[in-house]
């Protein structure tokens, strides 16, 4: 998935990702630039330091995996509600 907002993944964006996944029964990993983050940890996601335009690889496993990826795709595409 592509980071389409201007600012890249910062704390508030990471917070939206974490919030979205909070109630999903699955493990989601996000990989970028040799780093891997637990998508349910705001610290971990922020530390990916993914700037605008970067392409992230997501991997989900567990009962809600498909739903999680679908919802994340929407969030990324809506540029996290930012410019």
């Amino acid at each position, binding site marked *: 998935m592509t980071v389409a907002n201007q600012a890249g993944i910062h*704390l508030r964006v990471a917070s939206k990702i974490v*919030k979205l996944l909070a109630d999903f029964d699955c493990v989601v990993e996000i990989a970028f630039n040799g780093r891997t983050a637990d998508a349910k940890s705001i610290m971990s996601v922020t530390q990916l330091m993914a700037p605008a335009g970067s392409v992230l690889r997501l991997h989900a496993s567990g009962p809600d995996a498909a739903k999680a990826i679908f919802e994340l795709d929407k969030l990324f595409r*809506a540029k996290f509600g930012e410019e």
Partner: protein
Amino acid sequence: MSDVAEDEHRIRELTGVPASPGIALGRAYHLERAHLRVPHHKLAAGEVDREITRLVTAMELSRHQLSQVRAKLNLGDHLQIIDAHLALFQDPELFQRLRQRITDLSINAEWAVAQVLAEVVSVFEHVDDAYLRERGRDFDYFERRLLINLMGVKQESIEHLADPVVLVAHDLSPADLANVNREKVLGILTDVGTATSHTAILARAMEIPTIVGLESITGEVKTGDLIVLDGFEGKVFLNPSLELIAEYDTRREFYERFEQDLRLVRDLPAETADGVRLSLAANIELPSEIAAVKNNGLTRIGLFRTEFLFIFSAHPPTEDEQYEVYRQVVERMGPDGVTTIRTIDLGGDKASFAAAEVMGEANPAMGLRAIRLCLAHPDIFRTQLRAILRASAHGAVRIMFPMISGIDELRQAKALLAEVREELRQRGAAQAEKVELGVMIETPAAVLVADMLAAEVDYFSIGTNDLIQYTLAVDRANEHINYLFHPLHPAVLRAIRLVVRAAREAGIPVAMCGEMAGQLEYTMALVGLGVTELSMAPNKALHVKRMLGRFTSAEARELVEQALTLHTSSEVNDLIVGRMHANFPEEFELEKMDRDAEA
């Protein structure tokens, strides 16, 4: 003047980063933020559990404090900042790392916090992206709050202040800011920080003039010093002269009066001085802009561009994905809202699904685009129409087709719409009984058959950018000929008049959603021409509303009558733009101030 007197009146000027616009004059209040001396000690055997309990308690307490701050704030979307900090206090991985550190090294919780956070922040120091490099600082507030709660430090509160002050501090956390009484704070000055820091964002939301990144302001200013703060320019004046104070006081009054007027205007109806109502609406591109729509007192969206859904993805979005987005917008506009959704208005070059067909189109502006592209890809068009119709079950929705150039196109599109309605009915999916349908008037052909179009739609919306481009055959992006792009060309005025007349005879409203609709120079002319709805970028609406109240509808009609007798663009321009600037200079000045403030 003696040397001594001169010295006393030496004004000191410091420059920092303007973080929130506005002007403040007043006495400084130096808010001491004690440097936290983090205690380091090794734990004795058996103390580890107790230390972890202390950590858990401090995390809980921090979370509780932030939740209370959150409840106090009324900042809409800016609550995200507090939410992000709350999420840190609930982060399982971060907690795990802190706990592990205490256990592994047998050290006290404060020490572990300082160590782990130093590591977290250091990761950011090597990233290339300048914006992301600063993001390590976002963890500072987390660290400080946690340490304060672990150490039981009492923070100096500013709630007791009797008179309003200019707060001077090394740094302020978003939570500090959220706790201040807005009435007591004239402005804020800090040593550190950037325009993108959370504190700056909150200061803007709370409309407190603020300058950050002044480096040494805490070393230069004592409590009680007189200060002039210019949040537009990022300038602070210490030891200001009377003249300087008077000058800035005038500027402050000017700005505040206008701001106040603008706010008052927010809840007033949009009408001319003689009470002729117009409807004002917003042009938006993303659902996140709805906050701005509401902040500017608007209840209608006159143009919701849907292209963003199609530009970023390799595949067109599904019906459900689109429905989610449309529904969200419609629901957020509320029961009194109206949302005009424009179907895909893309040049083929921007739509991945059509890329192959438009390769090498010699003349894309006249090529396969907008409604033509949709009719060439009925599956994609039907999917969008289904999603829009389903959203209409959640609130008032209008559909708008772009770039219609003839009745055939309109009828084809309407036939598809009717089919899709029937499909949904058979599927048992909810949709509104009545969904108003309109077309954009953007081509000379549409202008010339406006009377025929009017018989088959519920409203018109004039898209001025394209209408001017096609009427004058001028591409505004072409630097060799863009001097010919004249919104007030007699041909454009006549075109608008034709459209309005056709609409009036058919009894349907005429909106305008092009750039002209939001430009103060043209407000009076558009009213005079008979446009009934103006749709614009949300931040223009209050200015246009103010302008509307400055003239009567009769004056507007006279202006247009006179303009229609003139033969050249420059004469029309001199008459209309010249008169607007001469009669209402304050409106333009205010708008410029507002624009500067936003920049």
